[in-house]
């Protein structure tokens, strides 16, 4: 059912002021979103035609990773004999003003290289956001590198660089800070009031975001709709269902802590070797913050030990750079694990209300979601994450005519939140998929058939994704494997033949949930790549795209090798160094394979064109007759061939004419096709105690063509594990002062190897014509689905529904005991 018109209401800020990235709303236009994509012939290869893409291939960095030879940021210490170590002094109070800092004892200590405080010359005074997004930045400039107005336990106030860690720690401990304390607020509902302690004064924020109302601690308000939900809910033939859901404050908990090494080189340029997801955004943000030209900043990403959104934030880099400037020597700042939990970033905890109007025969006439998001002390990603609570899950049900979403994003004196894998979609998916299960049960309808009657299919013009502008846009659906995801998931989990345990008190049930994500931020992405040929027919591939452990570098190599007709081993990949690789927005929003990968494909095609010219010259055959394969250029007509190595030597050492074969590619698009997931959870619940065992997670994902199927499975399994944590663990909890109660992994519970259920990942191949060789994204969509599927499974097993995450034995027992 294509929709030709939609009423779109997006709230925008004053003209000329960054409006938080909200796009100008437009009516969807069929002609603008043709179903038939003008796809290059070489992009749609049958499985038999593929020589590199979707073939098994070793991950290009694995050998150095398994031998301990790979270099992460902290491993560069040995190259800097003068390296100083950083330690940050953080606020011990939830809210107040620094009135005095006595750093004299710290400065006098032997081995201390620099002590910086908010007033120090080396410390930028500008307000900024740590978000690490594109430009103009859709997050408010509401923080400083070091803060006098502190808003949570953990806000950075001062920092020390010293010859070793022990000295840095001693010096940091010797800094005395006197505060004037203010009232604080920890609960988001209490904070959202004019009577609550106010976190931000009138002049304390620049680049304010749409809907801000700091008198009520609201950093943003967003809403969008199509159709008329209110009118639909008043109809006599519908029943209105309401439910409310809440989610945890999840830590990224990536094993490599935020780590950065800053120095100024012999050309007086600032260099950061840093564990980041966004080298180019970090370079721009540092240049703005320190008021230096972009050309004088270099950001270089080595191996990264996991990111999950946490390293999109520019959290540690400004402090290290300021210390390095103050100390005139290189500085390494490696956050502690305690800082990771209390002072880096986390997933926005939310309460989400779902409301629907459904006829007795199960036709959904209207759906709306409302989210109250707790953004913590600062507003990075506050508006955009909340927008995705609606704009990712709701489009899945494209047949619903009336849809509305609204969110309030409020500040509390608690640790900062930010981007995290799933980016709002997990919160919205819990509410939507839990809600639909409840409605289906109320109506006595099969939960899968109920969904199937309303979900997306190929040909749909999706207006819901674009209803709030910003990180979504209306789009045509050109690939959708939902039917097969469901069929294969059901088969794998044993949906139709579940055996009940022998013990009377044990009950087994299966729950399911669906999800859609996006592939990159629609209309706000850019990737670029260059490829150069070596004499021996091998290649150097330079890509701005960022591999944070996902295998992106390997996907780039496989894409290049497919185009060039060479072995993956013949492509040397160099990525993510702003001095040496082309521009890229970075690793977020499930964009890397789709955006940067397409740039690689274009660069390889550009190089291939030159290779075929040389082949034509050497074989004396017209280019039209030639193609590459098996590291050769060959003629279809005559069967004659010349190797890439022969072309490599001839092109640079030829007697008559010479050329360095180079290819370049840059890619941006308005498209953001959704990948899909069908989740199934098999659980056994003890009705006497509420204790439960998750027997198995099954998740089938349509990610288009998987460039490396085993790597794609790994992404699915890791995402599903993170999703499982959201369903069964507490995440970061805060005390009455808003202080994170977890300081190390032994206090932060997430499922260990013995606590993790087996995960069966299933790849359902479709062909997405807008993606490189048919690929779309994979790594986020399976993060969204376990909380609702487990909630639904528990309901199926013992008849009670848990809506407040995490699901625990105590909550199930309490619900079972209710009269």
């Amino acid at each position, binding site marked *: 059912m294509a929709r030709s018109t939609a009423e779109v209401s997006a709230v925008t800020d004053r003209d000329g002021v960054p409006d938080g990235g909200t796009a100008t709303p437009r009516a969807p236009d069929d002609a603008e979103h043709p179903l038939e994509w003008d796809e290059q012939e070489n992009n749609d290869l049958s499985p038999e*035609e*593929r*020589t*590199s893409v979707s*073939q*098994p*291939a*070793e*991950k290009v*960095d*694995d*050998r150095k*990773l*398994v*031998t*301990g*030879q790979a*270099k*992460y940021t*902290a*491993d560069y210490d040995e190259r800097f004999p003068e390296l100083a170590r950083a330690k940050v002094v953080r606020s011990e109070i939830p809210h107040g003003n620094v009135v005095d800092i006595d750093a004299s004892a710290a400065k006098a200590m032997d081995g201390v290289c620099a002590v910086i405080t908010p007033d120090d010359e080396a410390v930028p005074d500008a307000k900024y956001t740590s978000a690490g997004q594109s430009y103009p930045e859709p997050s408010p400039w509401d923080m400083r590198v070091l803060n006098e107005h502190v808003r949570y336990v953990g806000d950075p106030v001062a920092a020390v660089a010293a010859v070793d860690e022990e000295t840095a720690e001693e010096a940091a401990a010797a800094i005395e800070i006197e505060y004037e304390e203010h009232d604080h607020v920890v609960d988001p509902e209490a904070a959202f009031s004019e009577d609550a302690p106010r976190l931000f004064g009138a002049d304390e924020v620049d680049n304010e975001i749409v809907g801000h109302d700091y008198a009520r601690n609201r950093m943003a308000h967003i809403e969008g709709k199509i159709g008329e939900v209110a009118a639909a809910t008043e109809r006599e033939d519908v029943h209105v269902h309401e439910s409310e859901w809440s989610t945890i404050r999840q830590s*990224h*908990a*990536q*094993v*490599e*802590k935020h780590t950065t090494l800053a120095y100024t080189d012999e050309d007086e340029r600032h260099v950061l070797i840093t564990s980041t997801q966004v080298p180019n955004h970090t370079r721009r943000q540092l240049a703005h913050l320190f008021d230096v030209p972009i050309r004088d900043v270099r950001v270089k990403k080595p191996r*990264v*030990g*996991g990111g999950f959104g946490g390293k999109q934030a520019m959290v540690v880099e400004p402090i290290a750079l300021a210390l390095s400037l103050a100390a005139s020597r290189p500085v390494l700042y490696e956050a502690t*694990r305690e800082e990771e939990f209390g002072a880096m970033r986390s997933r926005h905890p939310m309460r989400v209300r779902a409301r629907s109007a459904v006829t007795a025969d199960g036709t959904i006439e209207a759906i709306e979601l409302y989210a109250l998001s707790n953004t913590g002390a600062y507003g990075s990603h506050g508006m955009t994450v909340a927008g995705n609570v609606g704009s990712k899950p709701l489009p899945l049900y494209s047949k619903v005519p009336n849809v509305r979403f609204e969110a309030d994003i409020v500040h509390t004196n608690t640790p900062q939140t930010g981007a995290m894998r799933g980016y709002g979609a997990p919160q919205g998916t819990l509410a939507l998929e839990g809600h639909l299960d409840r409605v289906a049960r109320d109506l006595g309808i099969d939960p899968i058939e109920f969904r199937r009657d309303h979900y997306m299919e190929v040909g749909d013009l999706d207006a819901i994704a674009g209803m709030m502008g910003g990180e979504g846009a209306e789009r045509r659906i050109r690939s959708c494997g939902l039917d097969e995801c469901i069929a294969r998931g059901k088969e794998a989990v044993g949906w139709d033949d579940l055996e009940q345990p022998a013990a009377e008190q044990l009950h087994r049930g299966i729950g399911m949930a669906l999800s859609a994500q996006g592939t990159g931020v629609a209309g706000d992405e850019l990737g670029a790549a260059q490829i150069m040929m070596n004499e021996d027919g091998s290649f150097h591939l330079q890509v701005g795209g960022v591999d944070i*452990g996902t*295998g992106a570098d390997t996907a780039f190599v496989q894409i290049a090798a497919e185009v060039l*007709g*060479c*072995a*993956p*081993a*013949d492509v040397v990949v160099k990525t993510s160094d702003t001095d040496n690789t082309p521009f890229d927005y970075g690793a977020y929003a499930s964009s890397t394979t789709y955006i940067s990968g397409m740039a690689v494909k274009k660069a390889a095609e550009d190089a291939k064109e030159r290779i075929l010219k040389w082949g034509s010259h050497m074989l004396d055959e017209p280019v039209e007759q030639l193609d*590459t*394969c*098996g590291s050769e250029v060959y003629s279809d007509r005559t069967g004659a061939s010349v190797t890439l190595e022969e072309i490599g030597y001839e092109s640079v050492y030829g007697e008559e004419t010479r050329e360095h074969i180079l290819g370049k590619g840059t890619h941006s698009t308005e498209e953001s096709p959704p990948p899909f997931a069908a989740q199934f959870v098999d659980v056994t619940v003890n009705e006497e105690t509420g204790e439960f065992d998750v027997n198995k997670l099954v998740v089938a994902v349509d990610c288009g063509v998987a460039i490396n199927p*085993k*790597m794609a*499975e*790994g992404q699915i*399994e*890791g995402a*599903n*594990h*993170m999703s499982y944590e959201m369903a069964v663990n507490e995440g970061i909890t805060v005390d009455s002062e808003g202080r994170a109660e977890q*300081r*190390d*992994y*032994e206090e932060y519970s997430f499922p260990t*190897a*013995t606590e*993790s259920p*087996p*995960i069966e990942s299933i790849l359902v191949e479709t062909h997405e014509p807008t993606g490189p060789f048919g690929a779309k994204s994979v790594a986020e969509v399976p993060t969204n689905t376990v909380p609702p599927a487990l909630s639904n499974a528990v309901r199926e097993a013992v008849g009670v529904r848990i809506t407040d995450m995490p699901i625990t034995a105590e909550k199930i027992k309490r619900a079972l005991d209710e009269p």
Partner: protein
Amino acid sequence: MKYTLTVNGERKRIEADADADVASTLRAAGYKGVKCGCDGGVCGASTVIIDGEARMACGLSMASVAGSEIETIEALGSQGDLHPIQQAFVDHLAVQCGFCIPGMIMQTKQLLAETTDPSEQEVREAIDDVVCRCTGYQKPVEAVLDAAQRLRNDSAGIEESTAMTDGGTLDSGGERRD
């Protein structure tokens, strides 16, 4: 003071304070495969084998390991000649960011030295102290079970395991397209 240790079969005299952390000391001595992911003794990334026992090197004092034999990830295979456990991790695509992997492989080495044919549950228990945030443990568990098989085959003189053939590298650009 100076401590004498045997690291990866080599006798070493290492200068360190008595209460210096073993993981940091090993890293400073060049054994960068020893990783630190927590504030001491929790995450498992620094796991090495000390006198035959897999232990986290962080949170241990140098004085407590004086005279010990320590084996780090660097003692296993090289990139061109991987140890069967390392090969299994590579073949199963069990590695994502890789930060926890040296510790997990050292735990695996000890497990397989003690138990040549572990059950899946035994594998999960062996790596239970290693925090991995990327994989959901699914592929690492499969890799360890396959590594056990490879090592059993090796000791029985059987040629390389053929159980997993889909993890290899393509050595050519494939066949010509029509």
